[in-house]
């Protein structure tokens, strides 16, 4: 019992230490990457899942991400893998945003450098909030029709003369 309690205490200590370090050293990063287009569409979720696990294994917490999408590159890129130079005109572009220790991010970079699935990647410091600006909506001002006002004015302006109406009715009956 005593041992288990001690362990608990120890665990608690470790947790608090971790929390304090995470508050101190962890920053928000974004990893943008280009995956080689020779990966099949069916296998894409697997590599995507592996990448997520990799980030988690380095103690990262994923904030937001996007599935890699096939894009046409603005210019062709070269990459040497196992002494063979290959050119790529299309690639899967995806990104993940996560918080991680500033020391761990260097290890992550080293790990990604060796990955043959990546053409390129980019690690940036960023902010937690969603940075992609929402599309601007067209002017929301509604155009008020002046006709409505006029009609109401006309109605109020016409005075009701009882005698005239009575006379008209009488004339109609007589006819």
């Amino acid at each position, binding site marked *: 019992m005593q041992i288990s309690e001690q362990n608990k205490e120890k665990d608690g200590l470790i947790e608090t230490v971790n929390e304090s370090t995470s508050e101190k050293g962890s920053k928000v990063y974004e990893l943008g990457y280009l995956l080689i287009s020779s990966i099949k569409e069916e296998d894409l979720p697997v590599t995507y899942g592996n990448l997520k696990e990799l980030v988690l294994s380095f103690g990262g917490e994923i904030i937001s991400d996007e599935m890699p999408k096939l*894009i046409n590159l603005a210019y062709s890129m070269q990459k040497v893998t196992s002494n063979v130079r290959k050119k790529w005109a299309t*690639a899967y572009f995806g990104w993940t945003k996560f918080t991680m220790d500033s020391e761990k991010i260097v290890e992550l970079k080293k790990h990604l450098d060796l990955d043959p699935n990546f053409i390129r990647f980019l690690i940036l410091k960023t902010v937690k909030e969603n940075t992609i600006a929402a599309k601007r909506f067209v002017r929301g001002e509604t155009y008020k029709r002046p006709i409505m006002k006029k009609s109401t004015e006309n109605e109020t302006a016409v005075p009701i003369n009882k005698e005239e109406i009575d006379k008209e009715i009488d004339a109609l009956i007589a006819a």
Partner: protein
Amino acid sequence: MRQDYFSANNIKFIDYKDVEILKKFLNPNGKIMSHKKTGVTSKNQRALASAIKHARFMGLLPFVVK
């Protein structure tokens, strides 16, 4: 003078993935437009330049348009 695009549209962080916005600040050759032409504040112009450079590196924007 034109007003700063980013403060007018309430954009606080210029993202390199927002290619549609960044394209507005490129000339027909794909060069970054000057501070004079964009009318963007100095701070945002610097952030804009680095965002465009990041987008170029990731193949989202061209370095040159032939």
